[in-house]
């Protein structure tokens, strides 16, 4: 299930949906939140822009790719856009599988690929004004490592 929305999500509801099947031994979830600092600068909030249409397409592609590599049952990806304040939830990734290794790997794969491929852009509201974030090399490295690992 893929949702791109302005409104907040409720982890309890998402978990209830994910944890509903007796075939699954493992439920792994990741939540990304607005953090109070980034590279040493105070953050007061975020403004998140995205490319409607393309975003959903890319997230669907990433989910499909994960399902090719691991035996997954349920997959939920939720990403918010618009203005978010400190501590707010930005993104939810939830994965279920009969096997815990698969659930962990797929959940991490999904967020790593989302970070480098889904058309979202963050603008941080800091004490020094609002600034568009630069892409991080560490994020590129993370998705590069998956490419190498999965092509082995």
């Amino acid at each position, binding site marked *: 299930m893929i949702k791109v929305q302005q409104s907040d999500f409720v982890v309890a509801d998402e978990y209830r949906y994910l944890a509903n099947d007796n075939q699954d031994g493992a439920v792994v979830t990741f939540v*990304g939140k607005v953090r109070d600092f980034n590279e040493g600068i105070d953050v007061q909030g975020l403004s*998140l*822009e*995205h*490319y409607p*249409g*393309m975003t959903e*397409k890319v997230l669907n592609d990433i989910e499909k790719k994960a399902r090719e590599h691991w035996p997954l049952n349920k997959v939920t990806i939720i*990403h918010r856009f618009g203005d978010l304040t400190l501590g707010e939830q*930005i*993104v939810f990734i939830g994965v279920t599988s009969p096997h815990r290794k698969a659930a962990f790997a797929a959940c991490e794969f999904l*967020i790593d690929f*989302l*970070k*480098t*491929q*889904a*058309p*979202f*852009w*963050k*603008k941080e509201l800091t004490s020094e004004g609002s600034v*568009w*974030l*630069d*892409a*991080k090399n560490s*994020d590129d490295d993370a998705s590069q490592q998956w490419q190498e690992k999965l092509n082995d």
Partner: protein
Amino acid sequence: MIKVLFFARLREQLSTDSLQIQLSDNMTTDTIRQQLAETDTLWAKVMSADNLLVAVNQEVTDWTQQINDGDEVAFFPPVTGG
């Protein structure tokens, strides 16, 4: 007609979120980039950014892709979601 979109830092720098251009012969993603760069020095600077990305019909592509009438072409900086 080709619909051209701009996102994030680009959209702000160019004060433009979308525009329409005419299809020309043998048009590629790079042709459009160069054509837009000719607008003025601001556009020249923004459209020559090293890390500029381009998507055609909502799929990221390279600078050699052929453009067809009705295509949606989007320019944007590296993504920073998640």
